[in-house]
């Protein structure tokens, strides 16, 4: 790599700060709404394309509510980073081991009357994101998401 590629003149390294934000919330549903608002403001400030912002907003709503409703978590942290080619999100909670990706996909072939109300959130998240992964790490459930910018 050319030395100047890393920073300014004279080899002094200037960190290329990627836009990011971090929040930690309890599992009160009203706090999920706060994350949605904060993410919306972040996306607007950094000119995240609407389609990316909307998709990530859906995934945040689904996964944070999962953590709040089904998990035994006391707190959830949210890390968002805008990279050159993608928007990355890491959600981490201190609940008992729970991998939402293990949930069976809903039966989308059912008619209106047969359709159960619910059970769609994780399916939506997997489909609407470009990358979704789960890890159990240091006693926490960690979900990483990515949506490509183009």
């Amino acid at each position, binding site marked *: 790599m050319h030395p100047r590629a890393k920073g300014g003149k004279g080899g002094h390294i200037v960190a290329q700060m990627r836009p990011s934000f971090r929040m930690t919330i309890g599992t009160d*549903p009203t706090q999920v709404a706060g994350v949605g608002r904060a993410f919306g403001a972040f996306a607007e400030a950094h000119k995240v394309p609407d389609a990316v912002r909307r998709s990530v907003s859906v995934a945040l709503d689904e996964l944070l509510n999962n953590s709040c409703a089904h998990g035994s978590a006391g707190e959830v942290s949210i890390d968002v980073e805008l990279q050159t080619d993608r928007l990355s999100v890491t959600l981490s909670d201190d609940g008992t081991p729970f991998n939402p990706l293990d949930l069976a996909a809903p039966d989308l072939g059912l008619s*209106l009357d047969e359709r159960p*109300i*619910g059970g*769609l959130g994780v399916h*939506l998240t997997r489909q*609407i994101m470009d990358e979704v992964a789960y890890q159990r790490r240091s006693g926490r459930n960690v979900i990483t998401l990515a949506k490509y910018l183009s």
Partner: protein
Amino acid sequence: MDISTRTRDRVTIVAFAGSLDSNTSPAAQQAVDDLLKGGATKVAVDCTALDYISSAGLRVLLGLAKKLGGAGASGGLRLFGLNQTVGEVFEISGFSKILAVFNTEAEALKGF
């Protein structure tokens, strides 16, 4: 989220503006319940200003469709003006197959 309702040719048009998610779906559910209580039998949902929808919002729409009796164009629920993301969520969830979705208000009201 803002919710507004109007009537046109005996069809109740309810417009959701903003996001329809876990935070706003209780208000949307309330609005929908009020419409049904008021005797609405044909409802068109105006999604023109709907930014995004999550499964909590889909749940409200599914419940409304069931109460209005039936799927597709013969039922009492029609939707129009979906943006790309909302349309994608409808496709992924299979809702585009069980609900009647139109591009414009005029198309949605035609023959309703």
